[in-house]
């Protein structure tokens, strides 16, 4: 049985922890709003780029560009997107577990590119080949980060070092829900051509081939950017939820401890009273 002093000390400690988790929840809330704004700001470009590719793939040949062409897969890369920081529930561990499953599921295990400190550090300890780790990009997310990552992948792909690129990340569904997504990035999956009654075909300037050559890398960079934005937003949402739970659990713990402290105090008083009464009886 812990002493009354011991229990009071624990109550104090738990209250301090609760203060911290509540503060972290508030911060995550603010960052979530910012991340969400950034994500929504990318939507118009996303829609337009998609529309453009739909129009283009309605007219283009599947083998019109190396980034479109399917080839025999001899080496592949899996891009694993986690957070830089922890305290966000199962956000990171879900990605890492799935990454290891995907890795051991095939005879040709992919090499890994890790975005986010948590994934890079954990996966380093398992038997996987990590080509590159991009750490701390989520501190201040910029489009140039996405460009660097994308250009490295395009370089490896066009040089023939790799034949396929997939990405594994948390997609932001709502403040309460993240979805783990595994997506193929390269070769670029062409948008299904959509029947557009107003669309009658373009003139291309310069040629279609030259345009594809410019457009596909741009599209790919944007895909990476969108992935980063999704993951960043999902991360803050997960953190907010985790910290909300932690704050509530701390509250429950404080209630429990207060109850047992009161019980202990009560029983001490009772036993002291009994002593006094017993003493008075003896004197009579």
């Amino acid at each position, binding site marked *: 049985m812990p002493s009354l002093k011991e229990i009071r000390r624990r109550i104090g400690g738990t209250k301090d922890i609760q203060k911290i988790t509540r503060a972290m929840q508030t911060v995550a809330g603010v960052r979530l709003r910012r991340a969400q704004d*950034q994500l929504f*700001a*990318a939507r*118009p*470009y996303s829609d*337009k*780029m998609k529309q*453009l590719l739909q*129009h*283009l793939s309605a007219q283009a040949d599947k083998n019109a560009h190396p980034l479109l062409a399917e080839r025999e897969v001899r080496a592949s890369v899996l891009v694993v997107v986690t957070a830089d920081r922890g305290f966000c529930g199962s956000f990171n561990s879900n990605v890492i577990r799935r990454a290891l499953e995907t890795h051991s599921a095939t005879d040709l295990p992919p090499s890994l590119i890790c975005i986010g400190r948590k994934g890079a550090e954990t996966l380093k300890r398992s038997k996987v080949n990590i080509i590159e780790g991009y750490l701390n990009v989520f501190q201040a997310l910029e*489009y140039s980060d*996405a460009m660097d990552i994308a250009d490295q992948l395009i370089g490896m792909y066009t040089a023939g070092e790799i034949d396929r690129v997939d990405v594994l990340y948390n997609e932001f569904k709502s403040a309460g829900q993240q979805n783990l997504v595994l997506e193929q990035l390269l070769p670029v999956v062409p948008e299904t051509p959509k029947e557009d009654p*107003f*669309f*009658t*075909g*373009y*003139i*291309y*300037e*310069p040629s279609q081939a*030259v*345009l594809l050559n*410019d*457009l596909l890398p*741009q599209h790919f*960079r*944007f895909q990476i*950017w969108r992935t980063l934005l999704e993951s960043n937003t999902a991360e803050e949402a997960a953190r907010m939820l985790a910290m909300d739970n932690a704050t509530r659990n701390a509250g429950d713990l404080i209630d429990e401890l207060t109850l047992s402290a009161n019980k202990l105090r009560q029983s001490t008083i009772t036993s002291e009273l009994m002593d006094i009464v017993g003493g008075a009886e003896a004197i009579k």
Partner: protein
Amino acid sequence: MEDRVFSLVVVTPVRQVFEGQVRSLQAPGTDGDFEVLVGHIPMLTSLRPGVVTLRNTDGRSIYAISGGFVEVMRHEATVLAETIERVDSIDVERARDAEKRAQDRIESAASTSVDMSRAQSALARAQNRLRASQLANK
């Protein structure tokens, strides 16, 4: 003249820059500058770094663009830019600084490194911003 307008959207990966009705769009195509007016034939073209001018009924606005694409459809046009900024918002001092920094880096960097190509594109961007702001102030 009132109805000689078409709708135009200007977007970058980071945000939407412009949405509205314009009378004309002038842009630096890879094969040369061009202008889009209402009723232009559907077209897809890529852009080089340069100056984009929008004209509508109450005047013109000038932007510096680092490259991208223009899609022209029957009744609408879209500019997909890498980066684009309004000339009035360009800080000439900062652009000069950026130009100088890029030049210094080019001198000190090894000619094949990634730094080099980055410095070169930074230089091109800075010079383009300066050119655009000069043009606007004419």
